């Protein structure tokens, strides 16, 4: 169990929205990384992609999705990391999303795990658990969250990058 947990940087989206959010110049001084996002898209597009070090190749993922009455599982060789609240869901509600990236500065391929939920005020909403792999041995120095299509992070969407040390 990690015994340190430090906020490295945080960003809150302003009134103009944002097509994507990138944490750059991530220090290599931690053991693991966590990003926590409270987010909403201003459009109907709310599927998100991730990119480490601006690299868009050699990703794979498995997704378990449930809505309280049914569950489904999919897999793919892409950068999909879940879906947050879209414009079609209850106004002013934000989805929660978290990614855990262990050993991000090491020289092995980079695994990551994600859990996220869409919030829709007790009507149908989805929860996601995702296991992902970036088959690249480079240390992670940047992390980008972006919408796959025309999504835009709504004002007040907030992302914080945390670093975890094991000593």
């Amino acid at each position, binding site marked *: 169990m990690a015994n340190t947990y430090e906020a*490295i*940087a*945080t*960003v809150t*989206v302003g009134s*103009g*929205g*944002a*097509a*994507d*959010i*990138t*944490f*750059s*110049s*991530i*220090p290599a001084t931690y053991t693991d990384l966590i990003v926590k996002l409270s987010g909403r898209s201003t459009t109907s*597009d709310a*599927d998100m*992609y991730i990119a480490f070090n601006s690299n868009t190749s050699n990703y794979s993922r498995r997704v378990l999705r449930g809505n309280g009455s049914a569950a*489904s599982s*999919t897999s*793919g060789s*892409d950068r*999909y990391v879940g879906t947050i609240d879209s414009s079609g869901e209850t106004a002013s509600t934000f989805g929660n999303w978290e990614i855990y990236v262990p050993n991000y500065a090491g020289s092995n391929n980079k695994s990551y795990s994600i859990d996220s939920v869409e919030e829709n005020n007790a009507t149908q909403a989805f929860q996601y658990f995702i296991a992902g792999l970036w088959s690249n041995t480079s240390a992670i120095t940047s992390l980008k969250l*972006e*919408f*796959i*299509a*025309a999504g*835009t992070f709504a004002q007040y969407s907030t992302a914080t*990058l945390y670093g975890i040390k094991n000593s």
Partner: protein
Amino acid sequence: MSHKLIVDCSTGVTTEVELTAEEVAQREVDAVAFAEIKAAEEAAAQAKADAKASAQAKLAALGLTADEIAALN
């Protein structure tokens, strides 16, 4: 044109940068590709659900009770 936010973790400074035409074009390409992936995943899930329903109906026709069919899941 939309912009992106870049947070420099070494300084804590956030910068707003306009998306380039290439980035906008790439998003459109990604959107088309992912829509195809999603459609294939949904079709596969539907086919699996249809096959399950068909199998359950055939088991019921053979005389299995609902509880017996559920026990096979």
